């Protein structure tokens, strides 16, 4: 339990270098120490940072984890993915609220506790799960909720809660080259330095490594382009004497900073796609591999500064990651003259997200790193030429960096020998849902869905959602398809559904997710995702008609054609695909073939009848 309302604003601002670009981090710290981000704080911040208040407000109001009103000493957020629902989340949440005499989304009378939902928190293998003041608690059941309720009633500070509540096993069920083989920190860097930057890039190229975030862009192409791109420092060098350029945290004494950092390495650890949790495990147990991959990248592109954007839901990993970074600095794997190589300076700092799925999109992530609302940029230019602080930036997924480290250590040919020709290497699959052994499966690309289902103990599966809501829903008729960029590309999520599951409800859950996570920048997505959600709710209420099905298809077309970024382009996928593959799930919900009003006509007059005291014939409507 944090002591609220004692907030050392000047201290926090100073800690982040008085740099408005660190706004998200500053606001996180403010909220951590005050419990809220009060309105007058925004004015003070505006003065301290020398930026208009609206700029701060824009950021403060954008992120789900920031709020102006108090959420009490204990903020409880239940993970709201369909997998959590299947594991009984709704009933457990209700049970918990009843135990504490609470209503969801309403601060308790004594100002102690607040309960709400949040998007998937990366624990689908241990669902249902929750965040308590930002810290993840997995595998909820009645016993654990009883305990938590007791602790809250006793007002025990979070630090004194039993550590077993926060224990999160990795659940690695099948390990391969990334997770199964020991890795000596520094091995990949030594190989890189021995080989040289150019030759290392050639190895990454020969390995045919493709981005693990789902899109599968060729990593070597991205790195090569960034390497070639001219940054500000270089331009200044052409222009005249070099100017001192402070890194993002310019001036902070505790961590090493270097001037002249004009290229950046950014690790995308905003693993927000519901059902994905492989980066959680990589960062929890293989962080060296990831940081080493980033350092190899820094060597290749000539970066001095690296950033890892860790999703806010993974706050429990922060201390661990910081200690790994400290250890690597001590071992001279980070810092100045890395491994004795003159002029090879590089360091990594961690930025925490604040609960915005859209920040997984690389340009939105960069905006967020720069302290702004996470809204995707217009592209081109792509980050490899104009990224963080408008400088050449490589943004890669956590797993991509881990692979890069392995390739630097063992060579491109070795990596290319695993998987298929177009999809080389291994892939971490996060399996959850109706199976006996949920967890991480590291498999070579090209594996069939059927094989994965056998591995995890889900032979009777009816459907699988590959790569999360924005991915592909496949039915039991297509289980011979393969996990590979050429067939089923995936960021790693693999949610299994048994024949008893209602695929309509799955799609409806996802439609709520997208409506909540749309950043609101473009109208097709902001309005389209809401309309889709409303229509799905209408069908769920048994008031659907053929007209609604037709309308949803129209909305999908608009979302796909007109949206600004990938969120909107894919937001309709779950509905489109389940409609196509499980039409029965929809048809049984259609009340009429022609048309059915979107709301209860007579019910919508209830309030006015109460206010006016009328009950005449004209104060009622037929619902037909």
């Amino acid at each position, binding site marked *: 339990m944090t002591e609220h309302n004692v907030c050392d604003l000047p201290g926090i601002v100073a800690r982040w270098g008085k740099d408005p670009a660190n706004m998200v981090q500053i606001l996180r710290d403010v909220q951590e120490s005050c419990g809220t981000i009060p309105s007058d704080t925004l004015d003070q911040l505006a003065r301290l940072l020398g930026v208009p208040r609206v700029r701060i407000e824009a950021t403060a109001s954008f992120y789900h984890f920031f709020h102006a009103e108090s959420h009490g000493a204990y903020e409880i957020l239940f993970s709201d993915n369909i997998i959590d629902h299947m594991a009984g989340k709704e009933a457990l949440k209700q049970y918990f609220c009843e135990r504490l005499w609470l209503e969801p989304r309403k601060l308790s009378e004594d100002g102690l506790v607040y309960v709400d939902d949040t998007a998937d928190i990366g624990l689908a293998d241990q669902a249902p799960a929750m965040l308590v003041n930002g810290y993840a608690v997995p595998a909820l059941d009645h016993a654990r909720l009883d305990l938590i309720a007791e602790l809250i009633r006793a007002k025990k500070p979070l630090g004194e809660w039993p550590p077993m509540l926060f224990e999160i096993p990795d659940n690695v069920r099948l390990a391969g080259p990334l997770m199964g083989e020991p890795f000596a920190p520094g091995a990949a860097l030594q190989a890189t330095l021995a080989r040289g930057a150019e030759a290392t890039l050639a190895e990454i190229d020969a390995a045919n490594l493709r981005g693990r975030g789902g899109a599968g862009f060729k990593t070597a192409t991205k790195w090569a382009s960034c390497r070639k791109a001219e940054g500000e420092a270089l331009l200044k060098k052409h222009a005249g004497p070099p100017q001192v350029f402070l890194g993002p945290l310019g001036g902070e004494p505790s961590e090493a900073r270097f001037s002249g950092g004009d290229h950046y390495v950014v690790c995308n650890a905003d693993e927000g796609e519901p059902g994905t949790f492989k980066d959680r495990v990589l960062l929890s147990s293989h962080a060296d591999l990831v940081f080493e991959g980033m350092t190899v990248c820094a060597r290749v592109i000539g970066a001095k500064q690296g950033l890892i954007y860790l999703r806010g839901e993974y706050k429990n990993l922060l201390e661990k990651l910081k200690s790994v970074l400290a250890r690597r600095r001590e071992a001279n794997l980070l810092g100045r003259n890395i491994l004795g190589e003159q002029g090879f300076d590089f360091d990594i700092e961690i930025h925490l997200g604040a609960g915005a799925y859209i920040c997984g999109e690389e340009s939105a992530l960069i905006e967020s790193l720069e302290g702004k609302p996470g809204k995707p940029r217009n592209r081109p230019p792509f980050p490899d030429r104009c990224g963080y602080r408008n400088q050449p930036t490589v943004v890669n997924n956590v797993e991509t960096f881990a692979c890069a480290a392995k390739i630097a250590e063992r060579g491109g040919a070795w990596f290319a020998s695993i998987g298929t020709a177009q999809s080389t290497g291994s892939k971490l699959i996060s399996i959850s849902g109706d199976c006996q052994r949920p967890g991480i499966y590291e498999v070579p690309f090209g594996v069939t869905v059927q094989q994965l289902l056998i591995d995890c103990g889900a032979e009777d599966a009816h459907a699988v959602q590959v790569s999360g809501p924005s991915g592909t829903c496949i039915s039991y008729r297509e289980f011979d398809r393969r996990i590979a960029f050429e067939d089923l590309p995936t960021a790693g999520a693999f949610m299994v559904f048994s024949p008893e599951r209602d695929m309509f409800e799955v799609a409806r859950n996802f439609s709520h997710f997208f409506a909540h996570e749309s950043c609101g920048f473009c109208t097709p997505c902001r309005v389209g995702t809401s309309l889709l959600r409303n229509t799905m709710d209408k069908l769920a209420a048994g008031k659907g008609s053929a*007209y609604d099905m037709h309308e949803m298809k129209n909305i999908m077309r608009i979302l796909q054609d007109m949206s600004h970024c990938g969120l909107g382009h894919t937001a309709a996928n779950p509905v489109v695909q389940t409609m196509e593959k499980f039409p029965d799930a929809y048809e049984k919900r259609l009340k009429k073939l*022609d*048309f059915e*009003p*979107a*709301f209860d*006509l007579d019910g*919508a*007059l*209830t*309030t*006015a*009848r109460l*206010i*006016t*005291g*009328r009950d*005449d*014939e*004209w*104060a*009622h*409507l037929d619902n037909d």
Partner: protein
Amino acid sequence: MKLKVATCSLAGCFGCHMSLLDIDEKLFDLLKVVEFDRSPITDIKHCGPCDIGIVEGGVCNAENVHVLKEFRKNCKVLVAMGACAITGGIPALRNNVDLWDCFQEVYHYGIGLENGQIPNDPELPLPFDKVHPINEVVRIDYFLPGCPPSADAIWKFLTDLAAGHEPKLDYEMLHYD
């Protein structure tokens, strides 16, 4: 034979109807092919069987629903004209305000009110707690966007329909800034 057209304004400002009148002298050409049934232009109170029904404004009360259902029942083609009919528009701004607060402000606490009472005459349309776009109440065949749609857009839309083909508006007619 002339096409029969009915028009009405629900929770709207009559701006779309003004735009309809902005067709100006071409109204005479229009009248060569269409005949107006229920419409503010004719002051006919109820519509009979029509080819085209044009609805301005969203649905904010019970009476709007009766009118809208009458139009749906009688019109072969029903058109939502303008932003309010399509999305709820300006009247839907009240959706963020509690209905009870609205009534209090209007009848109890408004400036210059003394002993204000909330009217309960059955002749007054009873308001919904929220304003809705008309496609949430009846099936709509065409949406003619704009606030208001330009006279040219309305002209093009009606003449296309009268000529018996799918209305098609050029980009310029749908481009607003």
